[in-house]
């Protein structure tokens, strides 16, 4: 449980897709003029990430990684198909995106119109492929964690685009120098936000498994100490009792 919580906060804040790794910038900058469209795209990204990361996790575990084909029989154990991971990950993502496109077109034509060419571009939104590749390179251990990772990275991206869209709506009423209006000021504001998000870097820098073990061990010794204390107190009590008698 703690593992899940840590991964969640880490992906939303510390290694935020937009502000820490600068992934998914193109659609982030281009579709953040209005809060309502930003929410739509953000939700689509959360959905696609939450679906594709676990899917690609399965592909990676049972098809791609070195020795992953061992479940077919021992003679397949030596195959290493990891050079195919780019193509397969992208295929999963593109299929999912096309599905989302069809669903959105059917149920919310207005959202479909405002998202315009950016729905297909979710497929190349580097945040999405980045999510799958990070999942692979960081060795996410279980499918539950993979789902958590996709979902929380999506939420991080959603937060970022929501924040910048809100700022851009407000900034329209400010007296920005004419050449900076629109894209220019958005770049600069994003830069400042990224500097702000850098300060999350000091949180949860963990990843040091051994340190965690040590922590648990020291916690255990403390428990032992508590026990000893209690024993001592008991003895003292009985000792006092004896004295009183």
């Amino acid at each position, binding site marked *: 449980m703690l593992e899940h919580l840590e991964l969640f906060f880490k992906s939303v804040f510390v*290694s935020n897709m937009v502000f820490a790794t600068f992934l998914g910038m193109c659609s982030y900058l281009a579709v953040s003029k209005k809060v309502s469209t930003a929410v739509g795209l953000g939700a689509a990204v959360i959905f696609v990430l939450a679906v594709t990361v676990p899917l690609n996790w399965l592909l990676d575990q049972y098809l791609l990684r070195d020795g992953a084909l061992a479940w077919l029989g021992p003679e397949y154990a030596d195959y290493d198909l990891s050079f195919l991971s780019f193509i397969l990950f992208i295929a999963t993502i593109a299929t999912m995106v096309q599905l989302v496109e069809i669903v959105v077109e059917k149920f919310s034509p207005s959202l479909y119109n405002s998202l315009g060419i950016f729905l297909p571009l979710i497929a190349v939104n580097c945040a999405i492929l980045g999510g799958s590749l*990070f999942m692979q*390179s960081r060795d996410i*251990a279980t499918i539950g964690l993979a789902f958590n990772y996709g979902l929380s990275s999506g939420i991080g991206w959603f937060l970022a685009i929501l924040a910048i869209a809100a700022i851009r709506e407000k900034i329209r009423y400010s007296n920005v120098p004419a050449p900076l209006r629109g894209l220019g000021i958005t770049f600069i504001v994003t830069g400042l936000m990224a500097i702000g998000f850098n300060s999350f*870097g000091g949180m949860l*820098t963990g990843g*040091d498994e051994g340190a965690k073990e040590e922590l648990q061990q020291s916690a255990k010794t403390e428990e032992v100490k508590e026990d000893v204390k209690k024993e001592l107190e008991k003895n003292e009590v009985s000792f006092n009792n004896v004295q009183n008698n």
Partner: protein
Amino acid sequence: MAINTEKNSYTVIFAAVMVIVVGSLLAFVASALKPAIKENQRFEKQQNILYAMGVHENSDAGSVNFIPTDKVEEAFAKHIKEQWVIQGGQITKDDTEAYLIDLKKQKTAAKEGRPPKLPLFVGEKDGETFYIIPMLGNGLWDAIWGYMSVNQDMVIQGVFFDHKAETPGLGANIKQRYFMDDFIGESIRKDNSYYGVDVSKTNNDPTNNDKVDNQVDALAGATITGDGLAAMVKATVRRYAPYLEQIRTEN
């Protein structure tokens, strides 16, 4: 052209043909080039291990120069005396290809509860003995790895770090000479236990004169890579601690 590209049957056929063409093309390229790639990777590993124990061709103060690929095999055979494989507490010393052990696979094995194979190399140069430990960890974008050589007193004699895809100019600087050279002389022991080395932003010792603090100066703009690197060094040192202790107390 009279093809109706909107028909479902056409779409399916097109997709199938595309998958077959692309799949076989990639499989052909991959299998045709595999031997050459493997050979390159083998030389690279030998070069890296030798670099960590100080066998290199560095001429000036700033660059990293390996033993050239055509001489590396010879040098490797000359300097690396023993290759140990530690598995489940047992040390075997007769595997001559221990340096090809894939650390990532061993990590997975350890996770699944099988005893991992831990390689350790014993090198010799100018009458001195070096113990070289391979390492693997995570940076900001992808894997980072390296080799670290210590002497019998557990003082670092040299390191080599590399990375798959860290940011150029920031995290990628872990393979710069000035960063790697900072590790030389640091001890991996602290207060009689095996600790490792911290990558510190606040040690007030940017020129790294203090060699007993278990700290080297961090790289600007590479917090996550630096933390990942320190975590890698510490985890490895902890994993090897019982065997390193054996080496230290041997004589």
